[in-house]
């Protein structure tokens, strides 16, 4: 019974929060996607019997650090884009003709572009709601998509490549120094290691 009630509440929360905010939904589900994808990557290492405990102690923190970069970069960039786009619309900086006329008729033309001004808080907002909401949702979604493209396809790959190269060099240096942590039980050449490393660290596409 409790489970049924929780599911029912979950559905209502989802409807209430995302029903009129598709941009926010894209940001949040994107972050959730990254978290689940990262969990899968970490658990792939944790539950892999072929990886020795010594190697795991190196790979698990590495995977977690990698996940943190992915999640933070996605959230910070995408939500910033979305918030800024929302601000442009809610302050009347970015409008359509009916919205601008509404502001003019409400005597709020001088408030346009003021960061503390919000069209939605006007008492007569109901008049323009049907025009304003779809426009704002559209701008939010476009901004979220642009933000996610910049984050996933430009910023994250560059950051990851730098990070992976640094880690790869450290690992090769350790292997050369014959430290027991990096010795593979089956024996692996540097060339093979580099190949494996490149297979692991390239691009950054979530599930």
């Amino acid at each position, binding site marked *: 019974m409790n489970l049924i009630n929780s599911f029912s509440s979950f559905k209502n929360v*989802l409807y209430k929060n995302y029903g*009129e905010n598709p941009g926010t939904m894209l940001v949040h589900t994107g972050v959730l996607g990254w978290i689940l994808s990262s969990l899968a990557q970490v658990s792939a290492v944790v539950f892999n019997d072929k990886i020795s405990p010594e190697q795991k102690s190196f790979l698990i923190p590495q995977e977690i650090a990698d996940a943190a970069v992915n999640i933070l970069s996605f959230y910070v960039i995408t939500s910033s884009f979305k918030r800024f786009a929302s601000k442009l619309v809610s302050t009347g900086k970015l409008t359509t003709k009916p919205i*601008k006329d509404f502001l003019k008729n409400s005597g709020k033309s001088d408030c346009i572009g003021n960061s503390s001004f919000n069209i939605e808080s006007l008492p007569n907002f109901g008049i323009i709601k049907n025009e304003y909401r779809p426009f704002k949702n559209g701008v939010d979604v476009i901004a979220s998509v642009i933000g996610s493209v910049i984050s996933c*396809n430009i910023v994250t790959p560059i950051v990851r490549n730098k990070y992976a*190269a640094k880690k790869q060099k450290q690992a090769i240096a350790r292997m050369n120094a014959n430290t027991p942590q990096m010795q593979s039980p089956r024996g692996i050449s540097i060339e093979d290691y580099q190949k494996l490393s490149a297979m692991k660290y390239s691009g950054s*596409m979530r*599930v």
Partner: protein
Amino acid sequence: MLIVFIHLGGNMAFGSVKIYYQNVQQKVLNFLPNSEYTSPTSVKFIKNTGEKISSAEQRLILGASALMSQPFIDSHNRNVDEKTRKVSVARTIAKIIAGTTTGFLIRKGCIKGIKALSQIPGPNVPKYKTIFTPKNIKDNKTDAFAQYRNAMGTIVALLVMMFTNFAIDAPLTRFLTNRLIKKQEENQ
């Protein structure tokens, strides 16, 4: 006393950051010109984007743009040797193709599935078809309800992908990577 002091200090610090953030935001807003969309086509496009783009389309856009940018970034990564770079590019392309295909199809499928299972309760509607319908919903044609279906479909898709990531993505990526590396070697 100490707690009150810390609390006040924290509030003041937070207040200062907030004021600074608002000032920066205001400066940016002042710098940008006012924009008004007068073309009905542009306004219609923006409104339609908000209604039609779900996480599935977002994934497709991400995948298409990733194919244009990520292999380029990997091929210009001077931090690794040439051999590593080539494998890296092959791996990236394979990952994008596998991830985008499965990501798009599973998201689309789950959103469609949720749509079928979130009908408005009625005499001719079986109970299982209302399993994902929130309480007190009377109209399934509103934009808010469509967005709810997208959100629920995406969440279900993410859970499904926790398994398909291992079952489909990983082997498909490995297969495509090997094919691409083989092709690279043949071209040399």
